[in-house]
């Protein structure tokens, strides 16, 4: 079956291409943009990781940067909404998580307005949208309005639409997308696995069909590079310990706490990935800010125990003294007197820099392993930046630190524990699904397609049966 070519894609006024995982979706967009020498294309996707991956591909293919502009839908929407606040009705200037929903409608208002249309027409000759399965209905309305002004071509995979939340439902392909966009031939050649494990790629195509139609997946017959283990805490940690020494490895769980727990158990060999929003960073910043005196020192210890091993046990004495309201905690301590001193300073001073000092001291607890190093380091960065006086609260500073990180990107370490939501779109050499039973059909598909060389599946049963997903 022949796939859609970049030239055909580029020539359409309104078109959609469905692409299975690893089948060259980014490549299609990049090449299509490269075909269109007149004017500039606007390319929108959902995450900064997505933006980076598109930019990398465009650079790789030698497409001149004056031919395109890549941005997130959210960033693009905010840009327009915030430029005309009274007209758009925007009330949220530094949105966090669900607050982003308050940005799309204002942006849609501007795009429907003559000024929005004027700016769009002067700036771009076409629009491409990647990862369309992640579009919420509200975002879809925005894209449709842009499509009224510019030719619009979208790509996505209904089977990877895992960002479905109650307050912001996702687009439905048959109801919302297909009536509006011409469907071109799917992309289904598994390029990602060509240099890794061809057999795995082909097997995954079959899995795709099964998952899409609700058929069970038999894990008793597996191709090369795929293995199955029965679910237990030991099998999970074993699979991680015994993963290949060469190449990147991702271990995938369902819930954030589960992921953090595994990371802790693995004693730092796997780093836990923080979610982009940095909700924990924000809430801990707030906690530091709103606490005072001994309460604040206790918060520092609690924060440290969330991020590294050994602290919860080693610093119990100090914590107990603090909870009793004692002022002179360093007194009479045999171990960790300096840490106690640092925490005393935290209690006595208003300055956040004392927290930073204590954090550095706590790092000296012997044999401790920081498994949430991203969170830990971001907190240090936040406190340092707060000192420059650029922002009024610690939480605001934290937001900015995460925002920058979101845009600049971060290199996942060689061994990561994460969740499907965070690793969608990323590529690794080896993937370990820690509990296939907890994942929905779509989540399972995303998880299983992360590794290009090998896949390990841990589940309570060796026959996986998932409900037919909504598409």
């Amino acid at each position: 079956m022949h796939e859609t070519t970049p030239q055909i894609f580029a020539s359409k006024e309104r078109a959609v291409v469905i692409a299975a995982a690893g089948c060259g979706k980014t490549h299609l967009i990049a090449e299509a943009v490269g075909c269109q020498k007149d004017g500039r294309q606007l390319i929108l996707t959902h995450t900064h990781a997505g933006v980076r991956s598109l930019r990398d591909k465009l650079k790789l293919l030698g497409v001149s940067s004056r031919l395109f502009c890549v941005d997130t839908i959210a960033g693009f929407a905010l840009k327009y909404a915030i430029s005309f606040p009274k007209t758009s009705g925007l009330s949220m200037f530094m949105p966090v998580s669900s607050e982003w929903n308050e940005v799309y409608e204002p942006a849609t208002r501007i795009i429907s307005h003559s000024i929005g249309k004027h700016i769009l027409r002067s700036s771009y000759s076409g629009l491409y949208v990647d990862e369309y399965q992640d579009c919420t209905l509200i975002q879809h309305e925005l894209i449709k309005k842009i499509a009224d002004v510019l030719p619009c071509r979208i790509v996505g995979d209904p089977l990877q639409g895992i960002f479905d939340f109650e307050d912001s439902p996702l687009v439905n392909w048959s109801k919302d997308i297909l009536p509006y966009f011409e469907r071109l031939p799917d992309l289904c050649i598994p390029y990602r696995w060509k240099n890794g494990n061809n057999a795995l790629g082909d097997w995954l195509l079959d899995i795709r069909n099964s998952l899409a139609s609700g058929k069970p997946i038999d894990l008793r017959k597996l191709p090369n590079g795929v293995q199955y283990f029965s679910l237990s805490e030991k099998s999970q940690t074993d699979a991680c310990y015994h993963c290949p020494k060469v190449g990147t490895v991702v271990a995938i769980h369902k819930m954030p706490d589960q992921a953090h727990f595994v990371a802790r158990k693995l004693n730092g060999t796997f780093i836990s990935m923080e979610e982009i929003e940095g909700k924990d960073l924000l809430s801990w910043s707030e906690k530091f800010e709103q606490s005072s005196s001994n309460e604040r020192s206790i918060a520092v210890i609690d924060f440290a125990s969330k991020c590294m091993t050994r602290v919860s046990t080693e610093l119990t004495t100090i914590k107990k003294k603090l909870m009793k309201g004692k002022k002179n905690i360093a007194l009479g301590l045999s171990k960790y007197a300096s840490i106690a001193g640092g925490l005393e300073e935290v209690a006595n001073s208003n300055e956040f820099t004392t927290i930073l000092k204590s954090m550095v001291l706590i790092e000296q607890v012997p044999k401790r392993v920081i498994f949430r190093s991203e969170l830990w380091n971001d907190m240090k960065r936040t406190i340092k930046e707060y000192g420059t006086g650029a922002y009024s609260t610690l939480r605001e500073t934290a937001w900015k630190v995460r925002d920058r990180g979101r845009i600049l990107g971060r290199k996942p370490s060689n061994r990561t524990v994460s969740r499907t939501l965070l690793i969608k779109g990323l590529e690794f050499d080896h993937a370990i699904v820690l509990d296939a039973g907890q994942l929905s059909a779509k989540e399972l598909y995303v998880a299983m397609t992360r590794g290009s060389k090998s896949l390990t599946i841990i589940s309570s049963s060796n026959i996986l049966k998932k409900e037919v997903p909504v598409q």
Partner: protein
Amino acid sequence: MKIRSVKISNFRGIREMEWPILGTVNCLIGPRDSTKTTVLDAIEYTLSSRWNIPFDDSDFYLSEPNNTIEIIVTLGQIPEELMREEKFGLHARGWNQKDGINDEPKEGDEHVLSVRLRVDSTLEPQWTIVNDRNKDGVKISYKDRELFGLTRLGQEVDKHLSWMRGSILSQLTSNRRDASAMLSRVLRAARDIAEFDKIDDLRNIAQKTKDAASHLGVKPSTDYKPAFDSRGITGGFGAISIHDGKIPLRLLGLGSRRLIALGLQMSCAERGSILLIDEVENALEPYAIIHLLHILQQSVNQPTAEGQVIMTSHSSIVIAELGVDKLKIVRSVNGKTEVSAVNSDLQATVRSVPESLLGRKILVCEGKTEYGICRSLDKLWTQQNGKSLAYMGVALVEGGGVPKSSQRASQLSSLGYPSCLFIDSDKLNESKPSIDNLDAAGIKVIHWDDSVSTEQRIAMDLSWNAIKDVVSLLVEWQGEESIFDPICSKLGRKRSDIGTNLDDWKNRIFNENQIRDAIGLAAKEAKDNKWFKRIDFGEELGNIIIKDWNQISGEDLGLRLLELKSWIYA
């Protein structure tokens, strides 16, 4: 491109100015030092692509650099390039005829950009695009400002006839590469053929130079000799200018040079540019001015690319030709510059007496008699105190009778010109607006006591000898019959009966007042401009009045004319 509004603060003589609506063709008129040229300067500095404008303390209002200069020009019909997202599209504002500027565009508004030039005490100019959402503004580069396509024809014409930087020719030229290469070749060729070292005198002096230098320790690496300096061709592209055959255009007369430069400006206008012209009439004959204005208006009204013209003028021809809707009166009071439009009601008045708008104050004379009298009084008073009406900035204007003269006075006064109306008092009631309204509007109304015409007043107040002079003068011009028949008829007698000797009349037949009244009445009723109602007659009349000055100083005639004098010389 169209400028929609200009706002100036603290620039030279302008402490503040807001000029909200600009039409397609704008002619700024106003007395000297009304700051009209400063307005053009402000617009030029803000929109031109120059970046190295030298500012100094004197450019600040009252020469006080702590009064930061701010000029904001809001432009519509922006080139698409500048409306891009990454340029200034997101900073656009809205504009419509009714509301003026809406900071966030409403549906149906034109999308405009506000360009701000700001100079503070550091003297460094900063150009930004501003709006209420973003008061700091975002920088606009000189390359972007080039897209505004602004040209100014000011004092220096010659630069526009060459390809000097900033000239119109240079703006019209997109590719300079070939010209650049040619310039380099010219330089090299000049160097090659110059053999200054073959000229003995020069060579000898070069040798002397070498000796003098080495005496003080400077040793040449080769030898000193005279040669062509590459600086000889300075000004780069300025060295290329247009020639008619072998003659450079800069040798043409000023009028021709200006017309050529104006023609070039207009070809820029065809791309939607904004043209600034100082003294559009400069060096041009009346017919040339009229033709120019016609073509100018055509060029900015192209359907494909609408441009705009802002010019200054001191010419009544320009004022009459353009029509009031294009005139903008500029006035400066205590640093506040006002730019006002001229109501279309004034069209007829302005067409008839365009020079009235060019004075500082206006003296409206009811008819030709009054006008003529004023002109001779002007000569007298100038002799007396050295200052003429012109010196005092008084525009002397014919009113065109009643009620036109009251109307004119009222209209002209409404434009902000201090005005005076010099009228007969025989038809005061017919004055529209009424005398009371005129007074209320601050217009000085000078009229005779009693309900008499000027002719009657003169007849009543001049000394007897002066009356005789007047009648003799009239008889000289019009003949005895035309003059004495009406007078006799007023007296109820026939000329054949009483003769034409006034003294005789006074002594034997009538009393003086009867005679005077008759003369006055006859003069007033004379039809078809037969008696005084011509300006030169009025002037002669004025001369007679002047001769009689001492005799009339206590009379109404003298008193009113003195009142006139003090208004003029206030």
